[in-house]
C-alpha cells in the first residue's frame, strides 16, 4: 500500500508541474495581459527563468498581488475558497444523500415504473444547463413565492455561508440537482451489475435478509465507481460553480477566476488555476487511495 501511495503521489506531482507549465505558457501569451506590469524588471528575461521565478515565489507562499482587487492573491483566495467549498461541499453532500437511495431504488426496481419515473427525472436534471435550472429556481422560489433569497449568501467565510440556509438553498439545489442525476445514474448501473454477481447470490443462498444483502454486499461494492466519480467530478463541479456563482451573485472562486480572466488579472488567474489544479489532482489522488482502501485488488494489480 505504501509503494502504491508513493507512486500515486509522485504521479500527481508530475501532473501538477505540467499543469503549471501549460497554464503559465498559455497565460503569458494572452494579448493585453498585465504581465509586463506584474513582472516588472523580469519582463525582459526568457520564459523559463520567469516561470521558475514565479514557481519559487509560489513555493514560498507568494501567489502574487492583484492590482484589480488591490490585495494579495492569497488574501483573495482565503476569502473565496471557503465560500466555494461551503457551496460545492454542501451540494455534493446533498447529492450523495439523495443519489445513493435513488440509485439503489432504481436498481432494485429495474425497468419498473418507479425506475422509469426516476430515470426520466434524473435525465431531465442532467440535461438541463445549470444557468437554466438556476434561473427557473430563482424565478419560482425567490421572485414569485419569496421562499428563498434571490442571491447566494453574502456573509463572509465558510460558516457565514452554511448558516445562511435561506440564501444557500437555491444555489446548492442548482448544483446538487445536476450532481444527483450524475451520481444516481452511476450508482444504478453499478448496483444492477452487483445484483447479478455470484457473491450476492451466495449471500442470499446463505439466508441473508434482503436489506442486509443490499446494504452489506450490493451498496458497498456499488459505491466504488461513485468514489472515483466524486474525485473526477471536482473540476466539473467547480466549472458549474462558475455559472451558479454568477447567477446567484456569489463571490466564490469560480466567479473570481472568471472575473480575473475577463480583466486579464494575470496573478489571480494563475494562482487560482494552480489551486484548482491542486484540488483536481488531490481529488483524483484521494479517489485512487479510497478505491484502493475499499478494493484490495487495486493495490495488488498495481504491484
Amino acid at each position, binding site marked *: 500500500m505504501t509503494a502504491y501511495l508513493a507512486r500515486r503521489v509522485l504521479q500527481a506531482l508530475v501532473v501538477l508541474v505540467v499543469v503549471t507549465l501549460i497554464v503559465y505558457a498559455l497565460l503569458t501569451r494572452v*494579448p*493585453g495581459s498585465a504581465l509586463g*506590469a506584474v513582472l*516588472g*524588471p523580469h519582463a525582459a528575461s526568457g520564459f523559463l527563468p520567469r516561470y521558475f521565478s514565479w514557481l519559487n515565489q509560489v513555493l514560498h507562499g507568494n501567489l502574487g498581488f492583484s*492590482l*484589480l*482587487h*488591490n*490585495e494579495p492573491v492569497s*488574501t*483573495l483566495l482565503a*476569502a473565496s475558497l471557503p465560500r466555494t467549498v461551503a457551496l460545492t461541499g454542501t451540494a455534493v453532500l446533498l447529492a450523495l444523500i439523495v443519489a445513493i437511495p435513488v440509485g439503489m431504488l432504481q436498481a432494485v426496481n429495474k425497468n419498473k415504473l418507479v425506475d422509469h419515473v426516476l430515470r426520466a427525472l434524473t435525465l*431531465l436534471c442532467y440535461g*438541463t444547463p445549470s*444557468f*437554466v*435550472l438556476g*434561473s*427557473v429556481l*430563482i*424565478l*419560482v*422560489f*425567490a*421572485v*414569485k*413565492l*419569496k*421562499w*428563498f*433569497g*434571490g*442571491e447566494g449568501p*453574502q456573509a*463572509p467565510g465558510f460558516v457565514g455561508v452554511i448558516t*445562511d440556509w*435561506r*440564501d444557500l438553498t437555491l444555489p446548492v439545489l442548482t448544483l446538487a440537482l445536476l450532481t444527483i442525476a450524475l451520481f444516481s445514474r452511476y450508482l444504478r448501473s453499478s448496483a444492477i451489475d452487483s445484483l447479478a454477481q455470484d457473491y450476492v447470490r451466495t449471500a442470499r443462498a446463505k439466508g441473508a435478509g434482503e436489506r442486509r444483502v443490499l446494504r452489506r454486499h450490493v451498496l458497498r461494492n456499488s459505491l466504488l465507481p461513485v468514489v472515483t466519480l466524486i474525485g473526477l467530478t471536482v473540476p466539473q463541479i467547480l466549472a458549474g460553480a462558475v455559472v451558479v*456563482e*454568477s*447567477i*446567484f*451573485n*456569489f*463571490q466564490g472562486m469560480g*466567479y473570481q477566476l472568471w*472575473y480575473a480572466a*475577463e*480583466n*486579464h488579472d494575470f496573478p489571480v488567474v494563475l494562482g487560482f488555476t494552480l489551486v484548482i489544479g491542486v484540488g483536481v489532482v488531490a481529488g483524483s489522488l484521494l479517489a485512487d487511495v479510497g478505491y484502493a482502501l475499499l478494493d484490495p485488488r487495486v493495490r495488488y494489480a498495481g504491484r
Partner: protein
Amino acid sequence: MREGLAAVLTRARRRGRRDRRARGVLALCCAASGLALLLAACGPTDGPSAAGDTPVSGGTATWAESPSSQPTWIFPFAPSAYFSVANTDDFEYLMYRPLYWFGTGTKPTLNTQLSLADPPTYHGRLVTIKLKDNYRWSNGEPVDAQDVLFWIHMEQADAALSSATKPVGWGGYIPGYFPNNVKDIKAVGTYEITMVMKSSYSTAWFTGNELSQITPMPMAWDRTSTGKSDCAAVVADCTAVYDYLYGQSTDTASYATSKIWSVVDGPWRLTSFSTSGLDTFSYNTHYSGQVPAHHISKFTEVPFISEQSEYTVLQAGGSGGLSSQKLDVGYLPTVDAPPPAAGAQLGQNPLPGYHLSALYEWGLSYYPYNFRNNTYRRFVFSQLYFRKAFQHLVDQEGVINGPLHGYGKVTTGPVGNYPVTKYLSPKLRKAGDPFALSLGAARRLLTSHGWTIPASGPATCTKPGPASNECGTGIKAGDKLTFSMIYASGIDWMESAVKELVSNASLVGIDISATAEGFDTLITQVVNCTATAAANCGWQLADWGSWTYAPDYLPTGEELFQTTSVANFGGYSNARNNQLISKTLHSSGLGTLYAWQNYLAGQLPVVWTPDAPADLLETADSLHIGPQASTLAITPEDWYFLK
C-alpha cells in the same frame, strides 16, 4: 505612456451595464418551466409599498454597486489603476471631499454649497482660493490652506512618484498642465491660497478642469512610517509621505480601523470594508457641511456580479420579501426596461414599491477612426466625404428606439448633448441628428468621389486622385472599402448597434469585419497606437463606449481632439480645430466654446454614437434621494426615509 494610460483609464468608459443575460432562455426548460408557472401562479403577488411622506431621521440605506465594480482604493490621491467612479465618486468622496464639488442637481456645474471653498477669484493671472472656515476634520482640526498645499505639493512631486514597477502618482496628472502651469503657490492666510497662472487661461476652464482635481488632505496624513513629515511645506518630503500612504492604501484589511483613513472631513465614516464590495458607512457626526434636518444614519454599498443578479434581488426582496438583502437604491437593466410611451421620458416601472428615474452621465459617446492606421485606410478616414457617408450609416434614433428600449439621446457634436448644459451651443442643441440614417446619402457621397459600388461586395476606388470628384490623396485605384472594427464585449445594445451598422454599411459597399473584445484588451490596443508607434496601429475602428468629463468638467476639447493630446486616440489632426480649442482655454466666454464645437461637429473627427443612460435608477418609495448628479457622485447624507 503613463499619462496616456491615466487618461484612458480615468475617463474612457464602457457604455451601459455589462453582463446582460438573455432571460428568454427560461423557455427552453419546458418541464421545469411548467412547474415554475404552476407554482408562480399560486404564489403571492407584490403590492405597492405603504411609504408615507413624512421624513424621518436614521435608518440604513442600501445601494447597489455597478456590476463587478466595487471600491478597492481609499487614498484620494489615486494612481491611474484605481482612478474610477467606484473608487472616487462612490467611495472616497463620501469621506474626503474635493475642494470644488461639481454636480448641482443633474447639471455638471460647480456646486458652491458642497464645495469646501468659495468659488475662486481671478485678478489677471492671480488666482485666489478662499476656503470656508466652518469645515473640520473628524479629529477637530480645520480644513485649511495647509491641507490644500499638501495635495498640490504631492502633485508637484508627482513626476518623482512613479517607478518602473509601481503604477503610481496622481491618475489625473498630465505633464504641462496643473500644477506645472502655475507658479508662486502659497498660503496667504489660514484659509487662503494664491497662485499665479503662467498663461492667461479661461477662468471657467481653470476652475472646471484644473482646480477641480484637488482634494485637501489632513495633516494627520502628513507623515511616514517613522513619524511626522512636512509635505505641506516642503515638496521634497512628499515622495516619502506618498510611499507611506500608498502602502497604507494597499492594506485593505485595515481600511475601516486605520488611524490614517479614519480622519475624514466628509459626511461619512467607513465602518466596515471588504474588497468583495460589501462596505458600510456611518454618518460622521462631526461633519460641518449642510445636511437636511432628517437624513439616514447608515449607508451600505452592496456588490453585484451582474445587473441581472441585481435585478433579481430587486424583484425578490424589494417589497419586504424574505430576501435577506433589501435594496433601497438599485437599477433596472435596459433589456428589462419597458419602453416609454411617445413623449414620455420613462416607461411603466415593472417593480412595485420602487420609482424609476433615468440617470445620464456627463460625457461624450463616440468612437474614433484611426487616422494613424498603418494601411491605406488612414487616407480614407482623412476624407470628410467618407466620414459623412459613414455617419449616415449610424442609425442613432434606431438604436435608441430598438436595443436601448427608448432610453438614450442623440449625439451631434463634441460636447455631450445630455444633460443639456450652457456649454452646448444653441445651434447643436436644436440640430437634431444632421447625419441621420440615409443609405442614399451615403451612397451618393461615395459614388460622387470616385468609388464604384458593385451589386455585392466592397466598393472600389476607380478614380484615384485629390480632385473633388476623386477618391482623395493617398488612395490608389483598386483600394477597397473594407474595414475591421473592434468593440467592447458584454453590452447587448452595443452589439446590436454594431450589427446594424455592419448591415447598413454592406448595402453601400462598405465591408466591416466587427469583432467583440474585452474592454481592457480593446483599450490596450487603442492606447498602444501612438504617433511614434506605427506598428501598433493595426486597429481601424474601435468602440469601447464613452468618455466621462470628470474630474475635468469643462468639455473644451483639449483632451480628446487636440492633435498632441494623449487621449486623441485616433490621432485626428486639424489645425483650425487646434486654434479654436486653444481659444477656449484662454477665453472665459462661451462664444469660443460654441465656435469650436459648431465647427468640429461638422468635421466628424469621430463617429458620434447614441448616449445611453448610465443608470435606470430604481429607488424604494420609502426613501427620498432627490435628483442624482450626472457626474455620478452620490450624496447619501441628503437621503432620508419617509414614513
